[in-house]
Every structure is written in structure tokens, then in C-alpha cells.
């Protein structure tokens, strides 16, 4: 039942990827202007509060991963795309944000809306 030392080191080398091998279409594409949703679940989320309602641009699509908000609560993987989204510090922090500072934050499909 318990893993041996050899199995433990094998698991370190193999890793434990959160990627899901599922054919899920992305909801956004690189270059899209998006808004971080103002979501406040009482349960687990990887949406940082400071981004609520902020607009950014999709810089990169990392592919399909498990969704932590459901995965943490035994509600399945809900596989979806994860993107690197670029936010301007001015948009996030207002006057306190640096003119030439940017935040790049990984966002799941369900954290974003398209800005039309």
C-alpha cells in the first residue's frame, strides 16, 4: 500500500500533470481582449481577488487542464483551456499601478468573458 523509496523517486521524475487529454475547444484565442470575472465563490478558486473585473489580453494558450474550482470539491475535472493573460498594472491598481508594469496571470476559460 505505502509507496517505496524507489516508487517515490519515480513519481518525482514522472510528475503529476494536471493536463487533461480531452478535445475541448478554447473559448478564447491569442490577442482576444478579455475581462476577469467578478466571481466570489465560498469554495476553492484560483482567481485572485485583485483581478476581479479587470481587462487584459490573451497572450498564450497553454492547452487543456483540470479546473481547480470543481476539482477541489469532487465535482470532476471540467477540463478547459488555461491561458496566460496580460493585465496592465494601471488597469488593476489604478493610480497606484506602475505605467510600465504588467501582470501575467494564468486564467481558465471559466474565469474570463470576452470584451466586445
Amino acid at each position: 500500500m505505502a509507496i517505496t523509496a524507489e516508487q517515490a523517486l519515480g513519481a518525482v521524475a514522472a510528475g503529476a500533470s494536471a493536463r487533461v487529454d480531452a478535445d475541448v475547444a478554447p473559448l478564447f484565442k491569442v490577442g482576444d481582449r478579455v475581462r476577469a470575472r467578478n466571481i466570489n465563490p465560498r469554495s476553492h478558486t484560483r482567481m485572485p481577488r485583485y483581478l476581479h473585473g479587470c481587462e487584459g489580453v490573451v497572450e498564450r494558450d497553454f492547452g487543456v487542464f483540470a479546473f481547480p474550482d470543481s476539482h477541489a470539491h469532487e465535482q470532476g475535472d471540467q477540463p478547459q483551456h488555461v491561458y496566460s493573460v496580460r493585465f496592465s498594472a494601471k488597469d488593476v491598481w489604478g493610480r497606484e499601478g506602475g505605467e510600465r508594469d504588467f501582470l501575467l496571470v494564468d486564467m481558465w476559460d471559466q474565469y474570463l468573458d470576452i470584451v466586445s
Partner: protein
Amino acid sequence: MNGVHDLGGMDGLGPVQPEQDEPVFHAEWEKRVFGLFLPVFACGYYNIDQFRHAIERMGATAYLNTSYYEHWLHAYETLLVEKGVLTAEELAARQRKIAAEVA
């Protein structure tokens, strides 16, 4: 959840204090807590997101006043009791026994 762990942009938490020539671990118990991570994970009682959520649930004051590996220890205890692997009484009894042995 809008917990205290969601720290980005919060003020008043003091200066960053880097330690010169910092060791990987600061105490023997930290090593054991770290070393348990993968073996306990491999038992399959919880996933990484449940582990993170267990830390987020520990309470704001406790979160800020305890170190990283104490957060992990709290997550093991919480999840293994919730999953029925251990009971809180069993843990408490073993802690009393060990405390009595070292006293």
C-alpha cells in the same frame, strides 16, 4: 474563497526579509512534513486542489501566524481526518503519548 491566502495587493504585511545562505529546511520536523507530501498524496485520498483548499480553510489568523510547512501539516491532519483515514481522537491520543515520552 476570499480568504487571507489570496494576498496579492494587500498592505501592512511588513518588509520582505530574505535570509542569507538559507538552508533548504530550517528544522528536522520541516523535513518530515515535506517528505510526507508525495507518499500521502500517492495514497489517493485527495488531489492537489483539495490540499490547497484545506490550507485556505485553516483560518486567517492561523494562516498568517504559521509557516509554510505548518500549513502543510494542517492540511494532512484536516484531510486525513475528513477522509476517515485517521480520527481526531487517535491523533490527539498519539500526541499525548509522544509528549509524555519526551517529557
